[in-house]
């Protein structure tokens, strides 16, 4: 079975609810869900009350920092390290930790483990993860590139290699995880990440719904010094009011922006779409070169799978990299299977691969718990 708690902690006209999908159909429980811990408590008790057989519980933890290069079984030491990682993702990590604590209360005897969005990028070489700041600052603040969306990259690169009948460890790929919230690109060499566009924080890299992506670091100090902008305001503006919403000045949703571009002479909307694709295209080019050529380019997550215009705008001018785009196939992409959107004779195929991060947590658990589970 599977399920999801919706609208947790959201105040609005629609109520929050939990969805349980089993082989007998879907149950929907409408109930106030103030926190993620509360939602987890209801789900865990639902499973316990129905005596659902469980071997272990896997948790997602966004930011494992330098502490975790792989998934880990949760014990006291692990909990200490997880707590140490809290400030690295001040919104996501505390939520995950609270869910872990709730799970330990409800199922004190069950093995539990964590998988991280950052761990996939623990293979980054030093030349890619090092920031050229004074060594004492790098050490004092722990500044280095971490990268995110690792579970998704694990899934889509493995699926793409299978689809192409190529061994993952002999395949070079660039993968674009384009979400409605965060987006990033990764350069994956033989199944290992060698570079990625997000950095120490998720702010770096691509233009996203509300994040600026890359920006001159000294432009920020210029704004603070000359225009009296405060550091915490700047952080919030660059994370929540920039990117597509900052450029278009009316929506953070690419679909709204594209509708506006089609309708009329919306200069700001057109610029937002143009810049979104332009930045993405530059990262793809840069990683193709970093890898010395690729065997496949992958698009995934919400925007990557559902937005044909983004894919078209990015892929039409990639002939120099061996990509022959097929506009017709691009229109035929669906959310439930892998679709190739290049011509049959394209030297490098482009694949749209719907992602599945939960299943990767399961894979990780199976790998981790071999021998541990009874």
């Amino acid at each position, binding site marked *: 079975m599977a399920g999801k708690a919706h609208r947790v902690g959201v105040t609005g006209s629609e109520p929050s609810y939990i969805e349980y999908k089993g082989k007998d159909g879907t149950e929907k429980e409408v109930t106030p869900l103030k926190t993620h811990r509360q939602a987890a408590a209801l789900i865990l008790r639902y499973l316990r009350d129905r005596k659902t057989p469980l071997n272990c519980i896997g948790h997602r933890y966004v930011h494992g920092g330098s502490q975790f290069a792989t998934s880990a079984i949760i014990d006291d030491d692990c909990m200490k390290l997880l707590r140490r990682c809290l400030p690295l993702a001040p919104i996501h990590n505390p939520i995950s930790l609270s869910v872990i604590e709730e799970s330990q209360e409800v199922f004190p005897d069950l093995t539990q483990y964590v998988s991280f969005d950052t761990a996939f990028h623990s293979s980054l070489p*030093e*030349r*890619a993860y090092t*920031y*050229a*700041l*004074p*060594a004492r600052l790098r050490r004092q*603040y722990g*500044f280095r*590139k971490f990268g995110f969306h690792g579970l998704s990259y694990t899934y889509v690169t493995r699926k793409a290699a299978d689809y192409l009948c190529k061994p993952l460890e002999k395949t070079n790929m660039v993968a674009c995880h384009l979400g409605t919230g965060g987006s990033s690109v990764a350069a994956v060499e033989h199944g290992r990440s060698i570079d990625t566009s997000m*950095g*120490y*924080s998720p*702010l*770096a890299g691509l233009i996203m719904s509300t994040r*600026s*992506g*890359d*920006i*001159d*670091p*000294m*432009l*920020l*100090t*210029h*704004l*603070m*010094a000359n*225009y009296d*902008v405060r*550091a*915490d305001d*700047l*952080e919030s*503006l*660059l994370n929540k*009011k*920039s990117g*597509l919403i*900052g450029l278009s*000045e009316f929506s953070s949703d690419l679909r709204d922006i594209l509708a506006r571009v089609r309708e009329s002479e919306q200069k700001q909307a057109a610029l937002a779409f*143009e*810049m979104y694709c*332009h930045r993405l*295209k*530059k*990262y793809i*080019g*840069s*990683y*193709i*070169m970093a890898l*010395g050529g690729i065997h496949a380019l992958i698009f995934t997550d919400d925007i990557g799978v559902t937005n044909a215009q983004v894919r078209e705008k990015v892929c039409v*001018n*990639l*002939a*120099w*990299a061996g990509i022959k785009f097929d506009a017709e196939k691009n229109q035929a992409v669906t959310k439930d299977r892998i679709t190739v959107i290049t011509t049959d004779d394209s030297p490098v195929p482009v694949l749209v691969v719907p992602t599945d991060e939960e299943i990767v947590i399961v894979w990780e658990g199976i790998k981790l718990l071999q021998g541990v589970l009874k």
Partner: protein
Amino acid sequence: MILFLDPQPPQVAWCEVRKTDPKDPVITRTGTCAIAEVFKQVNVPDGIMYMLPHGGEEIQEPISELTPEVLAAVERAVPLFPDGNGLAIRLIREGLALHKNLPQWLLCDTAFSLALPEASACYAVPPSLRRSETRRYGRAGFGHSWALHQAHVQLPSALKKIITINIAPQTTIAAFEKDQPIEVSSGFTMAEGMISITSCGDIDPTLPIHLCASGLPVSEVNRALGEQGGLNAIAERELTFRDLFEEPGDRHLQLAQEMYAYQLVKYIGSFTAAMGGVDAIVFFGAAVPSVEPFIHQITKRISPVLPQVRVLRFGFNRWEAMANIASRVFIQGVTK
């Protein structure tokens, strides 16, 4: 004689160009000194040219006559780059006071990049963070234009898409399509772009914000980004530009060299993608003739993806390029 003045904080570099055959300008003397010494060291000129390092949106043309309006625009541009532009404005004021009746011209190293497409020049920030000056600017514009010209001379066949790379302590890269600038590596400041000897290059924008939020003064954060960062910070010692191309003696220098080469390769890929291909890659700089193994290494890394691309190399003497401009402006009256 035409005097050319180039602010290089904290000093001023100057050169004297003999006003003779416009096709063969002769540099008679060059020097570098403190600003107070300049007009004592040089001979009495027939005309003066000043380099403005950062013209922002204020100076629209690479070459302009130093009228009162242009002078006012230079004054408005000073806060964009207080060190370099501050020196420039002091030089201009002194030159105008000393030589009121001489023809005087302003060169601007960023002006070429005002023609960048909006999508390349803009930052994705909200209106509340936008100011008239907050956009990307290319640097070393006269150098990149010179390299572009040399590429057309050497390969008169139709080169449409060209990437020019200035191999220098502050390496800059530009991409041109049909001679129009499409991309530049530097940003609002030189901190963005390629890693340099002392500045950080592209980094997560969260880092300077966290440093400021944790209580470091802005001036100190600027020093970390622009003066104490870069290849020196990676090598953990003071490097000369030559060190980048020598056998690395230790792990830290090796990492610095790897980062420099890696970022260069990534920029070539990124700008190739921006143009949808590339016909020629042009390396230029004073050091270029002596770093052939390095250029060969870069060429080898990009050749699996770009087997057809033409790679050109030009030794570049900034003074010679400037002397050419001086003779064009003062003798032939050409300013475009």
